[in-house]
């Protein structure tokens, strides 16, 4: 308990310059949770890895097919050889030249992350803009919404050939895939968010003489922000999946391509190693997004905390 108290004070002091609500929020969340959260995360992963290792030790899991963590994480340098960057693939460059194995893993991971990030940002900006325009202009609604509704159930996989026709290989098709996979859903989500804004808030603004653009800018956009960030987080994992598909189908290099390579060369160790790297990247990404969310939505109470009391 002593550790917890000290931690709480430290975070409260760090947040002293911010408004009181933010300080309290940070203190309550960071104070109790920070160390505990790391501890539980480690425990959760160890438990999973431990079970796997146990299966291996008991001889239930064939190490050729399901190599346990201590095997596939054993030799990062060995695994890293397969994480080739674009320069390494160029004709006439030998496998031993270019960046080291560790750097290759970083570069490949960064390339994939960058595609997810750029795609996510593009998709959200476009989707929110289109969603707001649809509600703002009746004309735009009638003109655009049917097509968007029509295209939203189309699986991202169906767009893959289009991505390649349009953009060939490289970053662009992978980013296109992320955008196209998220855009339509996010437009519909934005519209749904706008439709559920508390009418009283809009009416208050109306009685104060706010114009339509002012109501949108000062009431509707801030009011839909929490929901939109939620939608963004939900779609984050979707973006990761789509990027892997795009990369594995020859759109370019990246994590997806490494998985494909592992499949083609029958290398389960490499598969699991790549899965582990993707997991860590996705986890970090989500964590950063949650952090941003907490900062942007300083006014929201912590719902998870309330449910925990039950």
């Amino acid at each position, binding site marked *: 308990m002593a550790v917890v108290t000290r931690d709480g004070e430290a975070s409260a002091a760090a947040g002293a310059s911010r*408004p*009181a*609500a933010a300080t309290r929020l940070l203190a309550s969340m960071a104070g109790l949770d920070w160390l505990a959260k790391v501890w539980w995360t480690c425990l959760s992963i160890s438990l999973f890895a431990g079970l796997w290792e146990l299966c291996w030790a008991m001889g239930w899991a064939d190490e050729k097919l399901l190599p346990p963590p201590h095997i596939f994480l054993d030799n990062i340098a060995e695994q890293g050889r397969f994480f080739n960057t674009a320069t390494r693939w160029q004709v006439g460059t030998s496998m031993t030249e270019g960046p080291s194995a560790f750097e290759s893993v970083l570069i490949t991971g960064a390339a994939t992350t960058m595609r997810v990030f750029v795609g996510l940002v593009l998709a959200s900006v476009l989707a929110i803009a289109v969603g707001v325009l649809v509600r703002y202009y009746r004309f735009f609604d009638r003109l655009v919404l049917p097509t968007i509704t029509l295209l939203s159930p189309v699986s991202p996989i169906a767009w893959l050939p289009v991505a390649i026709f349009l953009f060939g290989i490289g970053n662009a098709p992978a980013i296109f895939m992320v955008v196209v996979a998220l855009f339509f859903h996010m437009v519909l989500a934005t519209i749904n968010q706008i439709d559920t804004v*508390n009418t*009283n*808030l809009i*009416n*208050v*603004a*109306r*009685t*104060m*003489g*706010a114009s339509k653009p*002012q109501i949108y800018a*000062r*009431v509707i956009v*801030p*009011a839909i*922000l929490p929901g939109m960030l939620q939608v963004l987080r939900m779609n984050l994992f979707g973006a990761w999946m789509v990027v892997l598909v795009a990369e594995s189908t020859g759109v370019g290099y990246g994590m997806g391509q490494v998985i494909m390579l592992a499949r083609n060369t029958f290398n389960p160790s490499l598969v699991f190693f790549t899965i582990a790297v993707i997991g860590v990247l996705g986890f970090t990404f989500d964590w950063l997004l949650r952090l941003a969310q907490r900062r942007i939505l300083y*006014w*929201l*109470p912590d719902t998870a905390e309330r449910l925990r009391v039950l």
Partner: protein
Amino acid sequence: MSSESAPTFSSRDAVVCRGVGKTWAAGTKRAHEALRDIDLDIKPGEFVVFLGPSGCGKSTLLYLIAGLEDATDGQIWSFSDKVETPSPERSLIFQETSLFPWLTVWQNVSFGLAIRGASQEERRKVAAEALQRVGLIAAMDKRPDELSGGMRQRVAVARALAMRPKVLLMDEPFAALDVQTRARMQDFLLDVWRDSGASVLFVTHHIDEAVALADRVVVFTSRPGRIKTIYPIDLPRPRNLFSREAEAMRIQLTELLRDEVDRAFAEQEAFAAPA
């Protein structure tokens, strides 16, 4: 009707309703008549309470007067202007909290000034004045979720006052508060009303509240809401609510309401019963 071309009401009145009716979803299968034939004159600085069974259209009438919804029949005027759109001169305070959760208390209070592009300095000054009047100056930099329900309603009142409205429309603003807090809020509202000189239209379910506050009580019939009677409360202020006259008025109002509440219940039961 000739009165439409030549209005017969005094144009100095704060609110004038002539033959006002409202049918929700008019012209569709789900058409639903909420109000019929409302004639009402409210003088400047008058405190009028709307009393009626649940669902009789009291909120609807406030919305019409605020200009948030259009009347299906009749006309509404306010200080010789025809009511067609919302106006800062007529502030509406809602039953549920309607503060912007992402703004601090003072930013909420000065929202209307921000709309007009006032400087931060001016906004803070006006907000401080309005919050002073509701006794919440210390909470200026807090966020709405840090306040109690009663404090939030006071902030909503301050926000309405900051617009210097001539008509204050209040839809059961204290319904969610406990009896003691409600009594305090009533005293506070009477002070504010006296200082501001605005007319107040106040919806409530509580007969005690009507007797404590009103110059006149408008009693509505069950749906479609019509004016059953207008009952004057001519008790001197500050009022002794335990006096015999006050008690007699409460009893009379209760009688007036009972029939209507019974009828509203019967109708709602018939409505809910399978055809």
